[in-house]
């Protein structure tokens, strides 16, 4: 059972959080590997605090508030880069949580998940940009703060797409479902690339620019001339994404411990037995699909606003696999696992691969020699930051072979009862 606030474990976690916060505030100077390590250490304190089985609510509240509401924004003020990374992690965390429902809970392998992300992104792009005005006529583009309405609309539209896709394909066996969803993802990408004629809906491979950002008024009023170079808009996005992550986690946890959540797990474990217990297969799977899609669609809107630019490139098969790698890494069906996976894969891609690339480039340009061979001879095509597929592939294979339940396996017991008064019997009374 969870320990109290003053127990050794809780105090340990709080102390760790304070130490890493201090480190972050005083060590962060740039974006090198040391800073990344400090950042990761800070995030680890969040992970430790969310272990509901071992940490009580009060400790959790203290640590989460300290790190997420106080420390990270302060770090961000000194260096927007890390605020951006945290926001990216948040966006992918919600995506991972959405795919976790489809793959982790219901056991449906969706390889085209990013298509729903694209739907949300293009929705806001068209509604709020000049391009959209050209397409939809007067009344558009919508004012930037219609963003919040767009989020709600995206939930509905993405869920609708989820149901449309799911209806014909959810009767298929697992492997086929995977291929078909992959095909669907590709179809969406090709459509995004080519729907610039006869009617220019998506503006083709050039993408759509000039997408509106919400709450820019708030950012402007908050802006203080004493902090030059700091984009208050970044803080706005951070807060927004943090709130959405909170909502996503809550939705996940509430569904998990309910009739529908258990129905999903039942279907994953044994479809025939689930049916015999009265669970309607197709309808239950559709709900999983629609819910996951809704998560993705929502974050699509946020993504489009944050980037102010969307193009078909951001929504290819690699991205779908990236999200899959996150939940496989973290733990299929595990809520905390999805977030750990999202954080690790995002940081790996954004930070570590990039640092490796920068390092190699440096070695190449200075002609560093080892065993008589100069790094200047390294071909320019060799660019580690582009090797995300290798990373994803290794993660998927290694996890399935060695830790199929992930780094943070799902705790499968959602109900615990007190059995201390029950006796073991041989049969009926």
């Amino acid at each position, binding site marked *: 059972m969870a320990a109290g606030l003053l127990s050794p474990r809780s105090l340990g976690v709080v102390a760790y959080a304070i130490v890493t916060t201090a480190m972050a505030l005083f060590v962060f100077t740039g974006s090198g590997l040391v800073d990344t390590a400090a950042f990761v250490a800070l995030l680890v304190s969040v992970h430790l605090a969310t272990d509901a089985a071992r940490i009580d609510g009060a400790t959790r509240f203290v640590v989460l508030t300290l790190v997420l509401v106080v420390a990270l924004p302060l770090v961000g003020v000194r260096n927007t880069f890390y605020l951006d990374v945290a926001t990216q992690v948040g966006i992918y965390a919600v995506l991972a949580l959405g795919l976790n429902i489809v793959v982790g809970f219901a056991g449906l392998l969706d390889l085209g998940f990013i298509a729903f992300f694209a739907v949300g992104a293009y929705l806001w792009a068209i509604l709020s940009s000049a391009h959209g005005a050209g397409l939809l006529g007067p009344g558009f583009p919508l004012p930037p703060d219609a963003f919040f309405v767009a989020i709600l609309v995206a939930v509905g539209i993405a869920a609708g797409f989820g149901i449309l896709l799911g209806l014909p394909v959810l009767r298929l066996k697992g492997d086929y479902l995977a291929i078909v969803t992959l095909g669907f993802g590709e179809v969406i990408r090709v459509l995004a690339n080519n729907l610039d004629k006869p009617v220019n809906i998506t503006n083709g491979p050039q993408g759509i620019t000039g997408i509106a950002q919400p709450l820019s008024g708030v950012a402007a009023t908050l802006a203080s001339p004493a902090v030059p170079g700091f984009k208050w808009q970044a803080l706005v996005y951070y807060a927004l994404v943090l709130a959405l992550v909170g909502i996503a986690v809550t939705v996940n946890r*509430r569904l998990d411990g309910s009739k529908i959540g258990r129905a999903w*797990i*039942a279907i994953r*474990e*044994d479809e025939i037995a689930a049916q015999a217990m009265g*669970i309607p297969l197709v309808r239950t799977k559709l709900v999983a699909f629609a819910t996951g899609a809704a998560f993705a669609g929502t974050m699509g809107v946020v993504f489009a606003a944050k980037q102010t630019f969307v193009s078909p490139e951001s929504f290819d098969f690699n991205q779908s696999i990236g999200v899959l790698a996150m939940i496989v890494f973290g733990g299929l069906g595990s809520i905390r696992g999805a977030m750990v996976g999202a954080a690790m894969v995002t940081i790996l891609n954004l930070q570590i691969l990039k640092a490796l690339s920068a390092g190699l480039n440096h070695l190449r340009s200075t002609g560093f020699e080892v065993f008589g061979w100069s790094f200047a001879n390294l071909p320019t095509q060799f660019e580690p930051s582009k090797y995300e597929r290798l990373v994803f592939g290794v993660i998927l294979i290694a996890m399935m072979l060695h830790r199929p339940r992930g780094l943070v396996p799902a705790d*499968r017991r959602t109900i615990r009862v007190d059995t201390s008064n029950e*006796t073991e019997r041989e049969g009926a009374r």
Partner: protein
Amino acid sequence: MSEALLEVTDLDKSFGGLKAVDAVSFAVPEKAIVSVIGPNGAGKTTFFNLVTGIYLPDGGRVRLAGRDITGLRADRVADAGLARTFQNIRLFAGMTVLENVVVGHSLRLTSGYFGALFRTARFRAENAASIARALDLLRFVGLAAKANELAGNLPYGEQRRLEVARALATEPRLLLLDEPAAGMNPQETEGAKALILAIRAQLGISVVLIEHDMRLVMSLSDRITVLDYGRKIAEGSAHEVRTHPQVIEAYLGRGVAAGTAGDAA
């Protein structure tokens, strides 16, 4: 004579060229315990699968409490009040013992997706009631002490009991048990027998069993139906079936049947 709870008329099913179930008719009254027996491959489990909606019958009718449920999908059949267990145990191995039974009860809940999402009062009340009911059923089958254990970790005999508890959670009017005593020692079989009698006595549910353990069948059943090669070849009391020449022939071969008939006369 009370109207039959379950009424099967002329049920037919072929797989490719093979007729697995051939014009089988079958009736089960309220509060009865009935057995279906026959040599391996006689079509008993196929018969169950047809009645419970896992296979679609080629012909015939299935009626439950007067309502036509022929060809309904398995989940609709469960909703109508027909629950079952499986020959090769099909538990949700990754869930706890209690959760397995709670899943069985889910079908009777009225609060759904949005109730769970917004934690409505109705959701919370129903959730608590489900858990209480599941615990009751676990006590009924004698597994309450293991409620928090993973179903996959239970020993074989307890897994069978859990399957029964899970099926009972769907609040059925009729329970179909596919080889409930398979692989059990005599003591466990006695326990299974007591459980089945209790199901009828305390819950008022009719039970249909497929079984190979003849002693269990003979001591438990109000009536026995015998299938062979998909056809019903005999039906009646334990004594009637035991001495029926066609039944003996089906199990032991023609020569023995002739000899036994002589002995029984």
